[in-house]
């Protein structure tokens, strides 16, 4: 029996007067590879952000390894949407990956160790960016940028990796490379992948969740896809 890693109970989230999530219930188990789908504005990114503590809950609770609101129980890696990050910031690829080695403390004269550098290089090699390590991030393509962001999360050695549309604004060949990389990672790690590319992930994820402010359908990927997109939807929650 898999361990419940994160449990969301009646989670609601508001941005001002706009409701982004409403009474959402979902349990993420260790080893899950979950695809989160849904139309624009359905709360997919907010779903990721409430788990990470980046968006405040207006109602409900989140349990991390059965402990209420205790985010530090789980190491979480995060790959944001490419448009959420300043791609022209003056920083090198290696420096970005190294930031994943930081912890919660703010230390005077903080320096990375030689082991941190070795590990960062190993992560860059894993995502195929070892030759780009000294380049400035402004010189990277969209696909390379996202691979770098994945490397930054991997160096944290996370229990769960949350990716918010990692293939958006990326060319087709890079999309395929990124999705293949995520598939490989899913063998050893719990993964939550927000995406619009349902066709590309449907065969790889072990669970698909269709969101529209709350979970409309969850379970077998093929069935959820059919329920969500190929039938007229009555939008009652369904576990398939």
């Amino acid at each position: 029996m898999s361990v419940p890693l994160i449990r969301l109970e009646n989670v609601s989230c508001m941005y001002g007067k706009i409701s982004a999530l409403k009474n959402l219930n979902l349990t993420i188990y260790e080893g899950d590879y979950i695809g989160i789908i849904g139309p624009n504005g359905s709360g997919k990114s907010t779903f990721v952000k409430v788990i990470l503590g980046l968006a405040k809950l207006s109602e409900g609770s989140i349990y991390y390894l059965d402990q209420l609101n205790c985010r530090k129980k789980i190491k979480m890696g995060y790959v944001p949407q490419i448009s959420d990050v300043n791609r022209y910031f003056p920083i090198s690829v290696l420096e970005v990956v190294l930031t994943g080695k930081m912890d919660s403390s703010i230390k005077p004269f903080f320096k990375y160790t030689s082991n941190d550098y070795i590990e960062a290089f190993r992560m860059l090699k894993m995502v195929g960016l070892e030759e780009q390590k000294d380049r400035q991030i402004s010189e990277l393509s969209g696909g390379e940028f996202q691979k770098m962001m994945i490397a930054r999360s991997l160096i944290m050695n996370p229990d769960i990796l949350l990716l918010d549309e990692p293939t958006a604004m990326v060319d087709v060949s890079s999309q395929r490379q990124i999705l293949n990389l995520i598939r490989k990672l899913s063998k050893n790690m719990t993964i939550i992948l927000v995406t619009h590319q349902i066709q590309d992930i449907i065969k790889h994820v072990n669970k698909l969740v269709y969101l529209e402010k709350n979970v409309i359908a969850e379970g077998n990927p093929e069935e959820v896809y059919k329920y969500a997109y190929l039938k007229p939807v009555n939008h009652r929650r369904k576990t398939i």
Partner: protein
Amino acid sequence: MIKAILEYQFLQYAIIAAFMASIVSGLISVIIVEKKLVMMTGGIAHTSYGGVGLSFLVGFQPIVGAFLFSIMAALGISFINNKLTGIKDIVIAMFWSLGMALGVLFVGMTPGYPPNIQSYLFGNILSVTGFDLILMAVLTVIVVVVIVIFFQDWKAHLFDQEFTKVLRKKTKIMENVLLILIAITVVVLIRVVGIILVIALLSVPAATSSLLTSKLHLRMIYSSLFSLFFILTGLFISYLTDYSSGAIIVFVGITTYVLIWWAKIRSAKISIKKARA
């Protein structure tokens, strides 16, 4: 001019002030440009005029009044913006105009002859006093120490604030400290270029250095050097011509930016031509 520098205390003060202003504007302008806080900085600077006016009315050092109002503006804009998301521009505009309005009212209410506010609005590095220098020195040390000691944390925070939040760093504290540093920098620069022109010294040096390097620490160093060049050149021309030093500093800065930008474009075109040939 060297003889005059050795002879006149006001020139010595001006040069010391130029060095301090260059260091803080170099460090902070890069952050302001990268975090896209230029308009917010303008709001903080203009709000400080209320403090200058109040100091004339009540009778204390104008730079202290500017300091208090700048800090209140920085934290006030941030607080209201966090509570009511999506109205940042409006909040900045309100602080901006309220600060100026209060300044005008306080100056109008000050009994006796109207005080000389020109040097606070448009800057006059040649009128820097001993007290100004002491305050500038203390504030410069605070800015340098906070930025240099926690440089790696600032770098991570400036690149991707959300990620530092995921790392559970105290991002709210960092954000507020950053705003206070900006407010402090505004105060240091007010005597040099004035409230109205301060925005130039907090954007042009960083913009100019960004044309030459894409490394954060080098940008900060180049930006400080550019700032020093702008201020000293402005000071020199102002001393010779008796025109407003603040205005000349801004003019030198923007002219330098345009020249470097033009040279960069030109060298890129030449390289392309050579590569084709």
